[in-house]
């Protein structure tokens, strides 16, 4: 039976909400205002000697220092960096997950607001300030560095995890809860497996960041690659700095590969 749909009036399209448009316009205005007020000077970038200057700068790094004694020091730095960053990030991931549950509104709006405020404060306080506070609380050494990383990263991961949980489609968890499962159990059986790859990726990405974290670790005398880099760059010892940068690059690539591999295993 053939119907004549053309006879039927096409319903008018619903109006779009203005708020999104307004926010987008505001963001565009902010961007334009930013560029306008900063008085950026691009001519330096496109001038003829920019390329020559950068080449000269880069050439300063070659060749990287390869004296065995120095390589040993770098190896020590790698170990220390890995230990601090892995432990700091691991602690932060656990705490962040614990805080993300209330922060994603699972225990009501008040809890959400309060925990989000705490998370905001945790990550608004820069690592350097945490380092100073923890230097006083825990003394010099990698422990203070680890904690400084952990505290700041908790704020970051807590927020990212909470957003991920809020963005996730809730059907699977709702199905379990309708059948009477406790909220936490339903979370572990439905939402967590759905969001785990994303959370894993954020955690590993923060780990990368923490590997590079430099300033804080120097302040608490924790050493590691970041501190070595700052030291050698400050003293214009470019060859040594080059070795440290290469080591960092390797570590970051390693974490990137781990992230890639885990994601493969988990999402394929």
């Amino acid at each position, binding site marked *: 039976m053939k119907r004549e749909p053309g*006879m039927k009036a096409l319903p008018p399209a619903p109006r779009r*909400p203005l708020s999104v448009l307004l926010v987008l316009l505001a963001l565009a205005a902010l961007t334009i205002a930013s560029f306008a007020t900063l008085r950026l000077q691009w001519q330096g970038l496109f001038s003829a000697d920019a390329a020559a200057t950068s080449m000269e700068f880069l050439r300063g790094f070659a060749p990287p220092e390869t004296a065995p004694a120095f390589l040993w020091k770098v190896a020590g730095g790698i170990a220390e960096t890995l230990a601090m960053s892995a432990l700091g990030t691991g602690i932060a991931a656990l705490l962040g997950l614990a805080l993300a549950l209330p922060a994603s509104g699972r225990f009501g709006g008040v809890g959400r607001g309060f925990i989000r405020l705490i998370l905001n404060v945790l990550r608004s306080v820069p690592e350097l300030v945490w380092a100073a506070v923890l230097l006083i609380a825990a003394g010099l050494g990698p422990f203070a560095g680890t904690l400084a990383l952990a505290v700041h990263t908790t704020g970051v991961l807590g927020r990212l995890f909470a957003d991920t949980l809020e963005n996730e489609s809730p059907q699977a968890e709702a*199905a379990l809860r309708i*059948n*009477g*499962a406790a909220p936490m159990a*339903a979370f572990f059986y439905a939402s967590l*497996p759905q969001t785990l790859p994303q959370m894993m990726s954020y955690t590993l990405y923060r780990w990368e960041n923490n590997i590079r974290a430099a300033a804080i670790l120097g302040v608490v005398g924790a050493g590691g690659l970041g501190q070595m880099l700052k030291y050698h760059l400050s003293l214009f010892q470019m060859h040594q700095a080059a070795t440290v940068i290469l080591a960092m690059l390797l570590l970051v690539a390693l974490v990137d590969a781990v992230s890639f591999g885990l994601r493969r295993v988990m999402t394929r």
Partner: protein
Amino acid sequence: MSFELQGVSVRHPSVAAGQAFALSDLALGIAQGEQVALIGPSGAGKTTLLHTLACALRPDAGGLQLFGTDPWKLDNAARHALRRRLFLAPQTPPLPPRQRVVTAVLAGRLPQWSLAQALLSLVKPADPRAAFEALARFNLEDKLYHRVDRLSGGERQRCGMARLLVSEAAAFLVDEPLSALDPTLARQTLRVLQQEAKARQATLVCSLHQVDLARQHFERIVGLRAGRIVFDAPREAVSDAMIAALYQNAHEAVPALADSPTPAVLRRPATRCF
């Protein structure tokens, strides 16, 4: 009585007040241990009704009694405790991809488990034998340790049914359990559901599109159309004409409706999307 509805009207949370109800003014009573088939055209409100029975949707009006109490008069904790006695198997089983069949099935036990048990079972399945036996009743035992996103459509649906079997509910609300199954398997699955309900003295409410199966296997049939109960009768009383009427008008006679614009078309949904 397992379920008792009086003048229940339901609107989905996203639908603005003042718009049409998905279910209007429903009256229905289902005794404990009864087996009821729910039939009706697509969009009639079958899923909505099952969700209402499962306390997953709050009626906007009318009285709902569940095992003799009004769940929406209880506090949250008590209502949630009540939900343990129900099992709702949704139309498309929302299983997290990458979960394994054994975990997905054992999730039916969650209401009975403590959090520690639940977590432990994620690491090492608590009772793989129960999951295995439940799956075996649907010929799916060989997929026990497979990932759910690597199952075929019918296998996934049976996985959802197996979850029902391991649960300890006293009322099963099953939404189109046979949609992705072949005829033989559909019959087998329905038989298992009915046997299980009978064995535990559980109530079974099952929405179906297979009218013949509904009429063969269920004593009582409820016909739903446009949010209202059209008939609610023992199977002997359901005639072919009633069935034809239930499904007929909504679609076949549309050209007739088309002349008078349906209000639904004029209604603007309050959706926000791109």
